[in-house]
């Protein structure tokens, strides 16, 4: 427990002290703000069917995926690779903490920061609520989807960060893995067999977010994110045990 907490607090601190975090935060605000304006003005067009802006906001634009696909690697790339590059890993891994505690502590820090990055979203909901009616159910379920996707993506990024001592390589590796993970579901329409189509449908992240945005909380999606996250964190732990001294 100490190991997790110590790493969590230190990494969180490191986020708020690193320029990268502020760059990510600013970009995130810009992109999300732009998407929000875009959606609202689009829906204000009298020719367009009536819709709920935040449904579209979560996951139904390519912007959402561009943001998570790019920013998850940016948040996780430093986690372990920097410890290995600078050599601080030596003290860390000779302290009475296990590899799993280190990985989980760092991952949780990235996750907390990720939630922090998304928190301004509630402002948009607040603005909409001021001028009209907001169905809070879909907003919350949409946020749950954001959390789920983040949990999975950040675990993949954490794993990538263990594999190399170069932050940039870690980021690119994470980006490639995540893009594969994301695009595999998009192959659904190309699938021929029923079984293949269903499997790909299960992996289709776009479809998942569609559901979450509509207020549908499908536990199968959550199980997919969480088991995926656990799987990649497990891989990260094993990789750390092998890689720490290299």
């Amino acid at each position: 427990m100490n190991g997790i907490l110590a790493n969590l607090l230190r990494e969180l601190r490191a986020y708020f002290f690193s320029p990268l975090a502020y760059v990510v935060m600013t970009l995130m605000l810009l992109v999300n703000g732009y998407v929000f304006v875009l959606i609202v003005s689009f829906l204000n067009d009298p020719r367009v069917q009536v819709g709920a802006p935040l449904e579209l906001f979560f996951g139904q634009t390519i912007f959402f995926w561009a943001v998570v696909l790019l920013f998850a690697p940016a948040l996780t790339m430093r986690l372990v690779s920097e410890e290995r590059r600078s050599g601080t890993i030596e003290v860390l891994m000779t302290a009475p903490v296990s590899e799993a505690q280190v990985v989980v502590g760092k991952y949780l820090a990235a996750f907390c920061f990720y939630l922090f990055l998304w928190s301004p979203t509630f402002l948009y909901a607040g603005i909409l609520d001021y001028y009209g009616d907001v169905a809070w159910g879909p907003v919350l379920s949409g946020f749950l989807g954001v959390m789920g996707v983040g949990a999975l993506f950040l675990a993949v990024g954490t794993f990538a960060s263990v594999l190399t001592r170069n932050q940039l390589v870690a980021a690119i590796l994470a980006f490639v893995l995540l893009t594969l993970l994301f695009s595999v579901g998009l192959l659904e329409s190309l699938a021929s067999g029923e079984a293949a189509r269903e499997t790909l449908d299960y992996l289709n992240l776009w479809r998942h977010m569609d559901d979450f945005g509509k207020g549908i909380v499908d536990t199968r999606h959550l199980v997919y994110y969480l088991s995926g996250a656990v799987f990649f964190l497990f891989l990260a732990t094993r990789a750390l045990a092998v890689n720490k001294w290299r």
Partner: protein
Amino acid sequence: MIEAERLTRSFGDLVAVDGVSFSVGEGEIVGMLGPNGAGKTTTIRMVTGFLPPSGGRVRIGGSDLFSDPVKVRRHVGYLPENVALYPEMRVSEYLAYRARLEGIPSGDAKRRIGRAVERCLLTEVATQIIGTLSKGYRQRVGLAAAILHRPKALVLDEPTVGLDPAQIIKIRELIRELSSESTLLLSTHILPEVELLCGRVMIIDRGRIVAEGTPESLREGWLGSAGIELVVKDAPEEAAPLLSSVPGVAAVRPDSVEAGRYHVEAAPGADPREEIFLAVRDRGWVLLEMVQARASLEDVFVRLTTREPGAPPEAAPREEVAS
């Protein structure tokens, strides 16, 4: 307290550490000496559990390091060779982080951090950002962090590198003081440091322990009695045979015949200086210089670890050393 048994580590084809066994008893300060690349850091990394050995085992305080690493590491304090710290943290924050990592209860942590800061002479930089500190201060931050949890075994890899002479003296005092609460294993290439601090020394070369013992026993065991340096004015040809015939002289080696410089090896236990003086005077020669050379640990070190290129490594008298 620290027992290493036939520790071996290879990286690919390179055997960095080859069957190193040693033990460090409770309260002892043991020094590890060796040229660069001898395997000191690799050995230390295995002893602290950072690097899994290819073979052999390590026991700390009687428990096997690799069967329950997390528990055993609780009793080890470690200052790595290149003290790596987080540059964006303040000294006090870093120590608080390390205290939490070691599982020190938060009530205790503040007091222990204060004490470590004081002992490692960090009081004036406690609130500074680590990235702005000099090498000497960082070294001491690393040391303070290593002693926070009062480890039973303290392993220091080159603890005085990068310090100025005044700081070196203070850190040595601290190390000596720490030996009353911890068992110490330290590696260094600073020979006087070993002589000053360590009760016992291991000399490592090419991944093997080539000699082990107290600094005195190493000096005596490896160099025998001390030699004598002589300078005889206008030394004639027969000076060397004459010197050889003096009782108590085991061997004579002319260092430079033109300058009349000779190196005389005394027989064990003998001190032939007076006889040499009388013998030289009897012939009417003039003795310009006579100095008894004191063998230093440095001589032992150089002798054990330097090799002619291509020559096979000197066979170490391991039987004698093992006892």
